[in-house]
């Protein structure tokens, strides 16, 4: 479960459907504040991420998310319910964040950002057998991945989490944003494509390369542990 950095309180993953959609709209319109509080809590983390992609600072992203929720409160009666509440909220968010990004001159179209997706394969080619081998393109005996130990202690779990967070932070920006929205926040590919305005094929490539690098970091971590002398 994700946690709020500041309070360390568990943050419900946004993939969790808070309510059946039609009920959700009905309850919000009826003024049920606990339902509103629940979606603010559940959706704000991923909204911060999407906003942060378009604007230049965390503080700015936070303001955009707050503005979005205020627009939601004001717009509830006018909302025609042609999309889900969540899609509607994200559309407001994306519009506000983009407008603000332009004002802040953070006009970085996805296409001009370093994507880090020009390299050939996601795994070191030396780990595969050469063209003259009986089984070209297959794992070498030392190159083949081996299964990882199951995390047996919470200490190890925390170490792994740190390692994953570090691996994520050094990814090229486009990969980092896509992997974060998909795997940390649990958006689906359609939601990511529309929030970032990229094509599904592009989204898949960025996800593929980003995940592969995080996996490689974890593999290094587990291999390092194997080499450590066990007490």
């Amino acid at each position: 479960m994700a946690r709020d950095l500041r309070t360390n309180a568990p943050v419900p993953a946004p993939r969790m459907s808070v309510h059946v959609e039609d009920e959700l709209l009905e309850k919000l319109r009826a003024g049920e504040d606990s339902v509103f509080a629940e979606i603010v809590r559940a959706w704000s983390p991923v909204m911060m991420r999407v906003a942060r992609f378009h604007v230049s600072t965390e503080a700015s992203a936070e303001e955009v998310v707050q503005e979005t929720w205020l627009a939601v409160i004001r717009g509830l009666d006018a909302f025609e319910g042609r999309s889900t509440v969540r899609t509607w909220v994200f559309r407001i968010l994306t519009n506000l964040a983009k407008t603000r990004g332009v004002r802040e001159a953070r006009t970085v179209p996805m296409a001009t950002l370093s994507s880090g997706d020009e390299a050939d394969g996601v795994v070191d080619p030396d780990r595969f057998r050469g063209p003259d081998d009986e089984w070209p393109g297959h794992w070498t005996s030392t190159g083949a991945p081996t299964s990882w130990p199951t995390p047996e202690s919470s200490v190890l779990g925390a170490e792994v989490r740190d390692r994953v967070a570090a691996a994520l932070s050094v990814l090229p920006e486009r990969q980092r944003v896509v992997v974060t929205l998909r795997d940390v926040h649990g958006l689906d590919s359609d939601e990511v494509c529309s929030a970032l305005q990229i094509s599904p094929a592009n989204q898949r490539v960025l996800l593929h390369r980003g995940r592969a690098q995080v996996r490689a970091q974890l593999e290094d971590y587990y291999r390092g542990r194997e080499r450590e002398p066990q007490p």
Partner: protein
Amino acid sequence: MTERDKPVLSIDCRGVVELVTDYLEGGLPPQLTAEVEAHLALCDGCQSYLEQMRRTIDELGRVPVETLSPEAQQELVATFRTFRGVQRS
């Protein structure tokens, strides 16, 4: 050449590694899905790779996230009450 005459492993490990994301996304055409699965059934290395990728995705879901401060959230809920009328049951 009939289906039966084709080599057992039509995709090599290098190829499987590059198809893993599409495979997990369910985005591969049925024929290719079948070929990836046939490969996986015979290849420990690729099975481990796929398993590691699932673990990676799992671990990514546990990375801490930033959100609005509790004060900002409370303020929004207060605004909601003001605008939408307080509902007390």
